[in-house]
């Protein structure tokens, strides 16, 4: 069925972990436990959102991404900067300088992801407007962590996910095809790279949930590229980069999908907890008249990803200013604006590249329903006996989580410090009782000697 192992770009550096359980509580899929003082990630539950990495005070997580020496493997390298990249710089830094900087770092060609976003926005708009009959609202699919969260925790919502490519993937398909034709190079000779604000993109390149075969060679950490870029921004600016309008640029922050798709009866939800809560509500059919929900796992959208360099609020303000400048030069109507930027010939359509999103439910206690029911009963009993403080000291995310681990044989009652204290107290009581029962007369004379000494 499912592959035995999942690739994860989010990894724990055991040496740095202090066992503080901050990450355990931040994880939306309850994928982390602290055992023997160190965190452990349960691979089949992790959705690579990076919430743990963002919160860890000891920087005990590393995110596996590509490194620039990877460019050497290819004859021609194309890089795909996205709005989240531009948001790291104040608007006084022209896009041309950023592109030239990327060129200086060794990339032969640059393609702006914000333009690809507009094609995806169009597809979303069409899909939402033609959707009839099925349950609402529809849900966006451009954040891979959201897709994984749906697979694991909300498989019942799979049918509501709008089947479109993430803009970076669509861009990669496009530039790869163009480069093959233009340069007469074999696909293996062309490197196509994304500069990612988050770990979920790299994971999705290595093990995609939504595309049959990715056109991306890898992704770089935005923060890492940012550091290198600062030293080589600008130059002779001879590059010819086509770019999107303000609508494509808007995709870097929450709300961008909705406004570029012209959807009014829609919500933009961002941040792990908020996304979780809204998916839960959609699953209960609490929003049946809403058309569309845009979901970003990171707070404030991609600009809030854990691989960004700039503070997310500063980044958002940078981005919004870039958007305003673009907008002041554009027609008022969205349709007109997007039509004038979307002039590429044969930009790929999502349907040809997507695969079906599969359910990967992780909640059940046992494969066998009778066994699961028995375990559930035991779990409730155990839970009832726990203090209900959700302190996390046991290393599980909550008392409920510990109860679950106990019935699964993965933890013990005395992992709960209150239970442990209770047991120690009982043991101590028992010893006192026992001591009382030991007849004094059996004691050697030395006991009297001690008593005499004390007098």
């Amino acid at each position, binding site marked *: 069925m499912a592959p035995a192992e999942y690739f994860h770009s989010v990894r724990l550096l055991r040496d740095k972990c202090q066992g503080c359980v901050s990450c355990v509580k931040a994880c939306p899929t309850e994928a982390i436990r602290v055992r023997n003082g160190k965190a452990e990630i349960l691979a089949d539950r992790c959705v690579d959102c990076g919430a743990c990495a963002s919160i860890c005070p000891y920087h005990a997580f590393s995110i596996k991404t590509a490194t620039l020496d990877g460019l050497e493997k290819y004859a021609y390298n194309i890089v795909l900067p996205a709005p989240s990249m531009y948001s790291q710089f104040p608007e006084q830094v022209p896009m041309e300088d950023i592109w030239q900087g990327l060129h200086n770092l060794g990339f032969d060609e640059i393609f702006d992801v914000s333009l690809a976003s507009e094609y995806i926005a169009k597809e979303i708009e069409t899909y939402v407007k033609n959707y009839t009959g099925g349950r609402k609202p529809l849900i966006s699919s451009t954040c891979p962590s959201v897709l994984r969260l749906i697979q694991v925790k909300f498989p019942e919502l799979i049918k509501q996910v709008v089947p479109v490519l993430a803009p970076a993937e669509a861009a990669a398909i496009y530039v790869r095809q163009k480069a093959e034709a233009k340069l007469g190079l074999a696909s293996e000779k062309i490197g196509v790279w994304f500069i990612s604000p988050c770990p979920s993109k790299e994971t999705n390149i290595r093990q995609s949930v939504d595309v049959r075969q990715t056109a991306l060679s890898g992704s770089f950490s935005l923060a890492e590229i940012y550091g290198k870029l600062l030293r080589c921004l600008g130059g002779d600016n001879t590059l010819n980069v086509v770019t999107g309008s303000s609508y494509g640029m808007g995709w870097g922050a929450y709300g961008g999908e909705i406004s570029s798709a012209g959807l009014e009866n829609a919500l933009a939800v961002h941040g792990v907890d908020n996304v979780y809560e809204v998916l839960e509500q959609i699953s*209960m*059919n609490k929003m*049946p008249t809403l058309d569309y929900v845009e979901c970003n796992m990171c707070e404030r959208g991609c600009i809030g990803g854990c691989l960004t360099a700039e503070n997310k609020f500063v980044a958002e303000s940078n981005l919004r200013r870039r958007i305003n400048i673009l907008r002041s030069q554009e027609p008022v109507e969205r349709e007109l604006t997007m039509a004038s930027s979307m002039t590429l010939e044969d930009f790929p359509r999502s349907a040809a590249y997507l695969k079906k999103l599969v359910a990967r439910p992780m909640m*059940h206690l046992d494969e*066998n*329903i009778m066994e*699961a029911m028995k375990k559930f009963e035991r779990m409730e009993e155990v839970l009832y006996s726990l203090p209900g403080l959700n302190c996390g000291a046991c290393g599980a995310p909550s008392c409920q989580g510990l109860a679950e681990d106990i019935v699964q044989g993965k933890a013990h009652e005395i992992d709960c410090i209150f239970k442990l204290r209770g047991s120690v107290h009982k043991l101590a009581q028992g010893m006192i009782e026992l001591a009382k029962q030991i007849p004094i007369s059996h004691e050697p004379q030395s006991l009297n000697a001690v008593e005499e000494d004390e007098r």
Partner: protein
Amino acid sequence: MAENKSLKLSFDVIGGDFERAGEASAKIKKMLKMIGVPADIVRRIAIGTYEAEMNAIIHAGGGNVAAEAFSDATVITVSDQGPGIPDIEKALQEGYSTAPDHVRQMGFGAGMGLPNMVKCSDEFDIKSVVGEGTTITMRFEHISEDL
């Protein structure tokens, strides 16, 4: 299946308590997911239970929401000692609602609750006596469709 084991959950819900409204349904949903009832069935159960729970809260001054899960089916019973429904035929029609304005303003009262319960359950039964209360029973077979 020879074994006839079942799991029961039961919650009292309070009339007009919109803050906690939906909690009973959410807990039932969680239990069903944990015992491995297929996701699409869990969803239908959650939707039906939520509608019945809301009706007890909005129209009946509170009541009780109970679930009994067997290996092959789940039965939901939502009962109240509220005003009862004078014309059940009418109440079952799509769009029929007596919800007061302030409730409609909160987004409830579209008159789709009872019709949805009928639609998403495999068996639906309603007993209502004016002045005594209402009991709704829904049965859901655990037979999954394709997701």
